[in-house]
């Protein structure tokens, strides 16, 4: 009888109900986190745009080779890792546990490749003399905004790789369910999504011609 009452409540979505969103609490939690994290990144990107707008000049240090080619490659890597993630979620949904774990491991590999490429980019810029507070072009805010934006994004990718590793290990052993894989996928796609804004705003609008 209690179950019947529960379903009656669930049936009327707009009255609130027990589960008005028809998603699990983990998934809803991740969506709320993504909503708030997207505002964090938006604030940083708007702040960067504001600072750049107000600056009399802004350096354009990104040459086609290596910076733009590598950044495009990083976009390709991240988008492909999103594809493997979504295929992994699909496999886990169909109960193909081994296949799902394999796809998640591939996704982690993509994330690691992204971090390596990006760390190398940082290394080169630091070698050129770009710091958080100074750079050869005399626009200190360039380094501040560049390292803050890409650094926070790289931190998200790095923690994403760790998160996926934990989920993959737990899912392989049967400790985690399909929902856990799906929720970790949401996080990974969000990290990909943020890069879709950082790439044009930071790189493509600062190409050296």
């Amino acid at each position, binding site marked *: 009888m209690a179950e019947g009452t529960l379903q009656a409540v669930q049936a009327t979505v707009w009255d609130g109900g027990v589960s008005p969103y028809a998603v699990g609490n983990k998934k809803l939690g991740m969506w709320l986190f993504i909503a708030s994290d997207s505002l964090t990144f938006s604030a940083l990107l*708007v702040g960067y745009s504001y600072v750049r707008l107000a600056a009399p000049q802004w350096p354009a240090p990104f040459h086609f080779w290596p910076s733009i080619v590598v950044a495009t490659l990083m976009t390709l890597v991240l988008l492909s890792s999103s594809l493997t993630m979504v295929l992994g979620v699909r496999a886990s949904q169909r109960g193909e546990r081994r296949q799902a774990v394999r796809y998640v491991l591939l996704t982690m590999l993509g994330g690691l490749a992204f971090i390596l490429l990006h760390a190398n980019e940082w290394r080169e810029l630091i070698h050129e003399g770009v710091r958080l507070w100074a750079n050869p072009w005399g626009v200190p805010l360039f380094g501040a905004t560049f390292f803050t934006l890409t650094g926070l994004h790289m931190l998200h990718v790095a923690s994403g790789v760790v998160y996926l590793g934990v989920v993959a290990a737990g899912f392989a052993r049967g400790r985690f369910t399909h929902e856990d894989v799906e929720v970790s996928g949401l996080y990974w*796609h969000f990290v990909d999504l943020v890069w879709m804004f950082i790439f044009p*705003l930071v790189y493509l609008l600062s190409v050296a011609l």
Partner: protein
Amino acid sequence: MNAVAEHEAGAGGAALYVMVWVYLLGLTAVEVFLAYEHFFSTGVMLAILMALSVVKAGLIVAYFMHLKFERMNLILSLVPAVVIVISLLFAFFPDGFRVLELGVKP
């Protein structure tokens, strides 16, 4: 169990995901191309790049993150709030011109 059933009914196949991936790569290629071919002024190019990025973000959210297949209730709770708050961030933007327009030395 309700959620799982609804989800499975709406989830796309592998071919759909690959197609979305191809679209995303294509849009990225267009962005890189536009950055080098100066058809437009910087302002117009910025607008075009942002429009393309919003399309890319929409594709990722709708298909990779499955939001398109979730209950409308969830979509309406998440999307408008985020869009409105991001729009509000731009309230500060006109102030960015102040130093340049008033000619004050930074």
